[in-house]
């Protein structure tokens, strides 16, 4: 009923105003647990970003058969470029490769020692996803064995980085799930404690003829307000903290791949606020329902 909603809301505000320290403590607890949650959302997002950044620099070198013609090379390049996981393909002629090689060993004066360029032409293949490097390398080696002399990639280090990236991704996901549950538990329990402290009041309300629905209303709205307030406080904290922190890091290590994407950050903040609101409401609902059914027990057989 509309009239009731209005009554519930005004009751909720009056009650919050008069509860004093208990409500403040609950809201603070809710805020802190949401901050922990938010910090780990931000962390996970950044870990994923870092993992992607690191792995995106992994590349495959495809060393070509000396016998390939220019058009064959062109076709082959197109074919690789069209693979879904490949971002770009660059042709490195053996001359350029030899120059680079020589530059790496400048002091050896290789030109004096080695008359002819011993290196082959090659493709430098960049991938979207570092974790597919190994797969693609294997594929190219098998499929184009006729054209290809050798396929190299950053090897063991790549594997380890892949591992880290996978860790960040799946570990992060697991953490988020775990932390959501922990946050849920802490917030619901905190609200439950505040409701339990008011069991006497609930009993009196039942005695003067209030229905469960009527008692539940204001409590649920109180829970919602507590959740939203706690969530809001958490988001403000996270916002300023991240801004400060990210700016500091960026100043110290300019190339550090932090998440600065507004949409991504905003969606994290939205999740935190929403979680606060949902858990506050849910917590109040569960708590008052349990208190009511407990009070119901008081009408003894």
């Amino acid at each position: 009923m509309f009239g009731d909603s209005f009554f519930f809301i005004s009751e909720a505000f009056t009650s919050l105003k008069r509860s004093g320290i208990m409500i403040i403590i609950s809201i603070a607890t809710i805020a802190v647990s949401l901050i922990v949650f938010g910090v780990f959302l931000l962390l996970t997002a950044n870990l994923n970003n870092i993992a992607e950044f690191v792995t995106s620099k992994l590349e495959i070198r495809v060393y070509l058969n000396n016998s390939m013609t220019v058009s064959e090379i062109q076709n082959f390049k197109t074919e690789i470029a069209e693979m879904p996981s490949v971002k770009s393909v660059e042709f490195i002629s053996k001359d350029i490769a030899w120059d680079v090689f020589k530059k790496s060993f400048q002091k050896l004066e290789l030109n004096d020692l080695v008359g002819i360029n011993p290196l082959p032409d090659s493709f430098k293949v960049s991938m979207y996803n570092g974790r597919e490097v190994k797969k693609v390398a294997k594929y190219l080696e098998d499929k184009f064995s006729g054209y290809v002399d050798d396929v190299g990639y950053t090897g063991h280090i790549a594997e380890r980085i892949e591992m880290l990236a996978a860790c960040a991704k799946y570990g992060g996901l697991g953490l988020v799930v775990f932390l959501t549950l922990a946050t849920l538990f802490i917030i619901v329990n905190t609200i439950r404690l505040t409701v339990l402290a008011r069991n006497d009041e609930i009993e009196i309300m039942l005695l003067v003829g209030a229905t469960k629905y009527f008692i539940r209303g204001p409590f649920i709205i109180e829970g919602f307000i507590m959740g939203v307030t706690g969530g809001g406080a958490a988001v403000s904290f996270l916002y300023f903290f991240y801004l400060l922190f990210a700016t500091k890091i960026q100043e110290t290590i300019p190339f550090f791949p932090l998440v600065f994407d507004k949409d991504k950050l905003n969606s994290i903040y939205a999740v935190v606020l929403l979680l606060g609101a949902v858990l506050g409401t849910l917590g109040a609902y569960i708590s008052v329902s349990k208190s009511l059914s407990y009070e119901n027990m008081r009408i003894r057989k």
Partner: protein
Amino acid sequence: MIRIHYLEKEYDNGFLALNGINLHIAKDEFVYLVGSSGAGKSTLLKLLFSVEKPTSGDVFIDSVSLKTLPSKQIPYLRRNIGVIFQDFKLLPRRTVFENVAFALQVMHYQRYRIRKQVTQVLELVGLQEKMSNFPSELSGGEQQRICIARAIVNNPPILLADEPTGSLDPDTSWEIMQLLSKINARRTTVIVATHDKGIVDDIRKRVVALENGRIIRDSELGSYN
């Protein structure tokens, strides 16, 4: 109006507080419930009000059996019964006005009617000046009077008063009892559990005496002893 039928109440700890109670109370009656401390007066009222369920036997209010009353119906039963609790049972975080108003809010009264009826009843018990105080800021007698005001504010057809003058001086007690008599005259069933010998002997009504959970006396226009 109220029929009590071989009622027995054993508390969880095994204590038998009521034992074979049979009682009929008509719609327009005013009944004193007397008996020494621990006789079972409050227990009987609690059963009428469905705070406790009978162990055996039954209570019928307007032919409705409280033994089988579904718990969803209890709030509606309670709205028809005003109760003055022995321990007041005031909401600590609501003002005097709000405590009394709550009994009307649960019944979805309009705001202006709540304001009017609550103001009226608070004047009746002499608490109009304490309207916006909290219960903790009131004297014992003042708290008892809020409880009285709350019980009668919606003119319930049944009024249960458990020691309604225990914290009141003789003059105020007398006024309150006159008020309860007046309410009874408007065809409200009134049951008063009391220790106030003076009042029972002065304002003569039906007296039901309990002892150890049994009715030992039931006399029209009786005295305390």
